[in-house]
């Protein structure tokens, strides 16, 4: 695909790697915030090629991983209703709630459907006027405009049988929370490129200044990631802590004004519980009171659902870079991709899942 393939070129990657090696004189701990970047790093083996001193810490930027257990349980309760068609992005279907996952609800008779876009769910709602159609609106700032637009359209077109189960999470408060953590080891951030495509970079200078960390807005292809790392290392080596944009083809400083206006109309800021991490103040969006009637949580009265995570799971520390997955006692034992205890073992981007596949080769290679 144009503008993907060019940014995967091995020769240019070699040049960037040489620059990173050349620039690195000391160990540095960098966090890529975004799960998509984690995926790219592991899939292309980028971390194996970095200088030994550069440690990539996988951040909490996988929406599948951080969507709260309670939210999953609410989704499961709604999806199990016979009157509901529950629509979701594909990767949410295997995320375990307290007792099961959406695949389990589906296998027990729930009408659970995978869609590519929330607009597909709206189409399903129009095609099934006698059913309630609920879309599972999770994700970061990147996904929020799509969900916002869908609810806006539902109201505009009078599609009363549509509603949204909303659990959006926000990146800047998470970065602040990570840096506030007493055991925090992160020295710089690769910021999530597509979040910034929507939101711009305006929130980052204050964070960079407050925590004295470089923040480099980074894309997703191998060259993008290498360039993000390169710029970060250069700043760290030079003792700087600035905000930079290494993904200018898709990110403008001002973000996307149309999307941001829609977000302001449809959502309002709320405290949000991140799975494995806990509640971060002001780190989420929920439907604003103007759209309350489209809120599935109220329509199906699941506001009372409460859930507790497995006491074994250390996903919170993993997500904050305080612990490697294989430093969790349950890793590979009680907890595998087939029997995940924490969401980080569920998604292909989840740090624990990535380590599970990855470690196997390490073990073989070192045995």
């Amino acid at each position: 695909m144009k503008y993907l393939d060019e940014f995967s070129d091995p020769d240019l990657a070699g040049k960037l790697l040489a620059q990173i090696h050349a620039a690195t004189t000391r160990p540095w701990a960098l966090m890529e915030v975004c799960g998509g970047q984690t995926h790219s790093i592991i899939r292309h083996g980028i971390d194996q090629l970095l200088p030994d001193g550069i440690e990539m810490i996988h951040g909490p930027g996988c929406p599948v991983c951080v969507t709260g257990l309670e939210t999953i349980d609410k989704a499961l309760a709604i999806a199990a209703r016979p009157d509901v068609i529950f629509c979701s992005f594909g990767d949410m279907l295997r995320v375990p709630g307290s007792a099961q996952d959406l695949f389990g609800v589906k296998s027990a008779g729930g009408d659970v459907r995978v869609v590519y876009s929330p607009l597909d769910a709206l189409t399903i709602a129009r095609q099934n006027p006698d059913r309630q159609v609920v879309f599972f609106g999770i994700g970061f700032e990147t996904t929020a405009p799509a969900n916002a637009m869908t609810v806006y359209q539902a109201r505009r077109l009078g599609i009363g049988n549509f509603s949204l189960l909303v659990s959006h999470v926000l990146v800047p408060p998470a970065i602040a929370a990570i840096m506030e953590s007493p055991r925090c080891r992160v020295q710089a951030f690769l910021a999530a490129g597509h979040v910034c495509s929507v939101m711009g970079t305006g929130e980052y200078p204050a964070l960079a200044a407050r925590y004295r960390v470089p923040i480099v807005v980074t894309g997703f292809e191998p060259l993008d990631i290498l360039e993000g790392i390169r710029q970060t290392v250069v700043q760290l080596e030079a003792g700087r802590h600035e905000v930079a944009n290494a993904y200018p083809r898709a990110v403008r400083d001002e973000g996307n004004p149309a999307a941001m206006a829609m977000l302001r109309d449809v959502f309002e800021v709320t405290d949000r519980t991140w799975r494995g991490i806990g509640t971060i103040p002001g780190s989420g969006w929920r439907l604003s009171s103007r759209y309350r009637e489209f809120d599935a949580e109220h329509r199906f009265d699941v506001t009372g659902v409460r859930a507790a995570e497995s006491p074994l799971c250390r996903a919170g520390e993993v997500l904050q870079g305080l612990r490697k997955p294989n430093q969790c006692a349950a890793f590979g034992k009680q907890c595998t991709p087939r029997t995940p205890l924490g969401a980080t073992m569920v998604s292909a981007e989840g740090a624990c899942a990535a380590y599970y596949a990855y470690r196997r080769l390490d073990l073989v290679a070192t045995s």
Partner: protein
Amino acid sequence: MCLAVPGRVLSVAEVDGTRMAEVDFGGVRKDVCLEFVPDVGVGEYVVVHVGFAIQRLDEASARETLAHFERIGILDEEFGGGFTRLAGQAGADR
């Protein structure tokens, strides 16, 4: 988070009062909502996530970035004199 890919707008149409486009992703085509990129037209590139264009793809910037990658290691602007030595070490590492 947020798998988003660049695609080229093939055509634009208004559907139910919403600006929609057929977008080409190198042979794969999908209908995409253009409401967030109101001034993008046919032939331009957009970054698409879950059926929505979330940003125009700046082709000039893309070309510049690639050119910058090509230049890197030739120019030495950022590291000043220390660069050549460091680059040599990095090569030995691999």
